[in-house]
């Protein structure tokens, strides 16, 4: 079942040298699944995620035929109605906890704030919910953590707190922008297990933005590969290693592999034609 459908999405920024297109005509759909978006920095993957929530600041501009959530076009909504969508229906986990958590509020206060946005309960109910969520993301000592400031916690904990915060409203769709790139492999596995569970148990749709091809291939159901603002290839995640586009192949080959040692790593040869070709549709 399709929850979210994006058709012909463009994100434009006016610059001194004319208009820069960060995202160029991207279309895709999302059901109750894990959809990966991979690409290098500057390929437009984060911009795609932000554009869905209409978080692109002026003078940046978002246009699309439609961005519909369960049939409702998000582009037609007023800013006020959008606030009802953000957080509650579609949540986003940002990349870096250092920049996304408020440094002068305790973790508990920030989480309570996010609870108060959507539910009216007593303070005690709110606190119980916060503690429950912190436990859900495998934080061992939640009572200590709610009274801590973000700088007193490690990057991995900060990341998990952001995840917990985004999960309080029980969103239908979660956009995770490099949620594990700051984490060690062992904590990364924990975080992925949490996300995985949410998709399976709550039927959530997950957009997983990452530059780690192997991770996406192992974790997601479908993958979109982006290059200079377009989708160059869409495929099933477990078939990523059989990808046909030279860009995808180039990325895969440039990775060092433990099981297949090479003298030299292959370097990507960029073909200008890749950027010109039309975006591939990721609608299923």
């Amino acid at each position, binding site marked *: 079942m399709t929850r979210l459908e994006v058709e012909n999405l463009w994100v434009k920024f006016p610059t001194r040298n004319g208009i820069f297109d960060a995202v160029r005509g991207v279309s895709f759909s999302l059901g109750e699944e894990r959809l990966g978006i991979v690409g290098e*920095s500057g390929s437009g993957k984060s911009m795609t995620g932000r554009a869905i929530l209409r978080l692109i600041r002026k003078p940046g501009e978002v246009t699309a035929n439609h961005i519909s959530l369960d049939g409702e076009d998000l582009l037609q909504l007023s800013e006020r109605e959008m606030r009802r969508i953000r957080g509650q229906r579609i949540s986003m986990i940002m990349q870096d906890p250092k920049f996304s958590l408020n440094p002068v509020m305790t973790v508990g206060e920030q989480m309570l704030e996010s609870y108060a946005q959507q539910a009216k309960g007593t303070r005690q109910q709110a606190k119980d919910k916060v503690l429950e969520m912190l436990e859900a993301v495998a934080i061992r000592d939640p009572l200590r953590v709610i009274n801590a400031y973000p700088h007193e916690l490690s990057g991995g904990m900060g990341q998990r707190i952001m995840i917990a915060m985004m999960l309080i409203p029980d969103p239908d769709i979660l956009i995770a922008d490099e949620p594990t790139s700051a984490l*060690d492999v062992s904590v990364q596995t924990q975080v992925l297990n949490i996300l995985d569970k949410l998709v399976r148990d709550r039927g959530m749709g997950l957009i997983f933005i990452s*530059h780690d091809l192997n991770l996406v291939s*192992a974790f997601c159901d479908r993958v979109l590969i982006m290059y200079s603002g377009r989708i160059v290839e869409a495929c099933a995640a477990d078939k990523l290693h059989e990808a046909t586009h030279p860009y995808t192949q180039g990325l895969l080959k*440039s990775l*060092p592999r*433990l099981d297949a*040692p090479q003298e030299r*790593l292959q370097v990507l040869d960029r073909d200008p034609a890749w950027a010109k070709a039309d975006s591939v549709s990721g609608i299923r």
Partner: protein
Amino acid sequence: MSGIIIDKLNVWFDTPEARVNAVKNVNLRVEKGQSVGLVGESGSGKSTILRALTGLIPTWSGSMEVADEKLGRKRSHRFYKKVQMVFQDPYASLHPRHSVDQVLSETLRLHGFSDIDQRISKLLSDVGLGPAFRFRYPHQLSGGQRQRVAIARALAPEPEILLLDEPTSALDVSVQAEILNLLVDLRLEHGLTYLMVSHDLAVIGHMCEYIAVMQLGEIVEIMPVKEMRELRPTHPYSRHLLESSLGYKSEDNSVQ
């Protein structure tokens, strides 16, 4: 002739509440010309070892010997000529208001070279940057180009040993491949010794002959890369690290 010999190294940090022992009783040998990798999760003490070697942390005990020179509280000028470091984040390790020319000429002057002009051209071509890059500022360079400048700066004093602290973890995979190739080439050309820190086992596997696995400040296992490739690590933590780096497995799948 030896590279790096570390014997019973302890490093600690004193905080008002307690003493944190970041590195505990570590023994490590890197022969001249070898390349050794340190892996482990963040906080396991791998970068701390590099910092202690370069003299950035004063609170240590044990003994460290680099290129036949016993290290004391103070590092000699000779030490800094022989040992250079490349840092993780090229966005933070280059002075934003110094051009590439300034960065390199300052280093060369400090180490007493006179033919600075020729050396800068040579260094830039060594790291694969054309002469056009010489008068650029860091903000005019991409992440990969910046890391090349940082490597050129490290090569300027003609060192024997390079300490590499996650040199590619801030870069895209395609750029990572270029930088790793460059490091492999430079090591062959200049006969360098590498001690490299990374959390990426595949990167260490590509670059190094030996892997030292660290956990909670201790080296739990040192093995040839070949053993790691054949999935034969003995320590449970090394196995865990290896398994997690081979890709994500859903909890459900592992049950099946």
